């Protein structure tokens, strides 16, 4: 697959319909939930950084809480071959009615999904080493990226507190850790670690995902140092496949639909990662 400019896009095509996947497990991972579900054969193999639109086959919405109605976007955290299909993992934080319902999925239930969607992480720039930087639930799309990279890459992660930092244990390589409250790793922000790492060796490509203020700090730091960076952004999505024009992000080229032109964007395309609606 190639984009308008003819450059190869890391994009696995999705089947053009919603399907269901059998939930094989929902586990608490500190403050987050890890959902595993079997996407039955023929299951497309997602590229790191791609995402899925998820809902539940029943009990999605309504009730006294009224929402959710639309599906929700989630990066696949990992995918593994399993008997009968591909086991997809999603890492999620319960922040509202959709994530709450997903985190309450039972093992007999079916997850409804469309995907994989969007464009994943591109290769590191020539002669640079990959540097993975994650904040909070933004660690999810870095897990499959680490799996895919040939070399072990430094992974720098920031969390609110130790309760959120359990996800750090999912990485194969060594993880540099900060927490806001110092309850695990070093007290402070993950950009502190990034700055030191770039001081040490600036020949890096940064792959970052996390909350908008963190992504903005990463963007600004990398811009200052001339370091190439790819940012996996979030914005509110209704469809995930370019239909609604709802998920736009302001870039130097105008508004881009994050679901078809992202979610991974080159930081150089952005004036800021802190735009209205970012992170929703």
């Amino acid at each position, binding site marked *: 697959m190639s984009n308008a400019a003819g450059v190869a896009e890391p994009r696995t095509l999705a089947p*053009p319909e*919603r399907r269901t996947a059998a939930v094989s497990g929902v586990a608490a991972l500190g403050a987050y939930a890890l959902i595993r579900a079997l996407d039955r054969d023929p299951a497309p193999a997602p590229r790191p950084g791609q995402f899925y639109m998820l809902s539940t086959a029943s009990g999605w919405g309504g009730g006294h809480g009224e929402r959710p109605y639309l599906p929700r976007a989630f990066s696949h955290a990992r995918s593994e071959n399993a008997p009968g299909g591909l086991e997809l993992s999603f890492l999620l934080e319960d922040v509202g009615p959709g994530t709450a319902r997903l985190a309450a999925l039972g093992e007999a239930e079916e997850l409804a999904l469309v995907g994989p969607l969007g464009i994943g992480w591109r290769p590191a720039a020539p002669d640079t080493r990959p540097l993975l930087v994650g904040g909070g639930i933004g660690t999810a799309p870095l897990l499959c990226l680490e799996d895919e990279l040939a070399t072990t890459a430094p992974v720098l992660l920031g969390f609110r507190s130790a309760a959120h930092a359990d996800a750090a244990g999912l990485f194969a390589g060594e993880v540099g850790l900060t927490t806001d409250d110092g309850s695990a790793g070093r007290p402070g922000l993950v950009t502190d670690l990034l700055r030191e790492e770039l001081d040490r060796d600036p020949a890096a490509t940064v792959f970052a995902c996390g909350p908008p203020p963190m992504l903005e700090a990463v963007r600004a730091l990398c811009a200052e140092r001339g370091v190439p960076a790819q940012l996996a952004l979030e914005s509110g999505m*209704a469809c995930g496949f370019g239909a*609604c*024009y709802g998920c736009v992000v302001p870039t130097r080229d105008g*508004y881009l639909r994050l679901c078809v032109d992202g979610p991974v964007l080159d930081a150089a395309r952005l004036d800021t990662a802190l735009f209205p*609606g970012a992170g929703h």
Partner: protein
Amino acid sequence: MDLCGVELGGPVLNGSGTFDAIAARRAFGDPLLERFPFHAFVSKTITLEPRQGNPPPRLWETPAGMINSIGLPNRGLEGFLAHDLPELAELPVPLVVSVMGFSRDELATLVERVGAREEVAMIELNVSCPNVESGLIMGADPAETALAVDRVRPLTDRPLIVKLTPNATDPAAVGRAAEGAGADALSLINTLKGMALDPRGGGPWLGGGAGGVSGPAIRAIALEQVSSVARNVSIPVIGMGGIASGHDAADFLAAGARCVAVGTESFRDPAAGRRIGAELNSLAGAARPPAQPSRRDRDPIRVR
């Protein structure tokens, strides 16, 4: 089946602006064309000049629905003709191009240029916009609508669909006016005006201020308007608003619509149109008597 002389494989269209076949092809590849969800494809509304659309956030979820404030981003007429039209011409179904003008002159240019392209089977006039000449929302006013249709009618031999706005006191009167001025079909409903506030305080959530409500929440409202318009005109009606199942679609057909369009439900399932078409087919066995005994009856005065 036939819609204004155009042969369709079935009665299910998409609502304008709710399915971007070009973007969907990037996401789904050619299987999308092999299992195309609709029997005709309606483009997103285009305008004379390019528009970048409204600032984000553009979406808000509501009970059984959503609000959008997209603001009609599009490449403008020239960009559409040069870039989008050739790609849309590859779709396996007839193409309807939706156009909006902020004046009758703009509308005329759009209709003339679009109608001259043989890839285009029909033109839909989205009149849910203010006319800069009068300050009135074209589609809310029967006279404004008639003037607009009157102006563009001679400029093309393509069937003209007028898409009505539900934010009007009397959509049936607007529909009659459009029919009188030469429209070949009507489509409705567009979104209902709606609004959400930022839960953190400080004003509207949507970058555009207000927006339009769609989805199952508006289905009963849409069905009433479709029924009332269909009873008042002889030209075919394309009914939409919250259709999410074959059963819903059958209701719109029973209420007098010739075709249906699927909008927001496609966001939940890109194959919604195809599923709804299949469900309609299997319901067709269990034939239902039409809900409207006759057209051209006027509504009795009723009090709720």
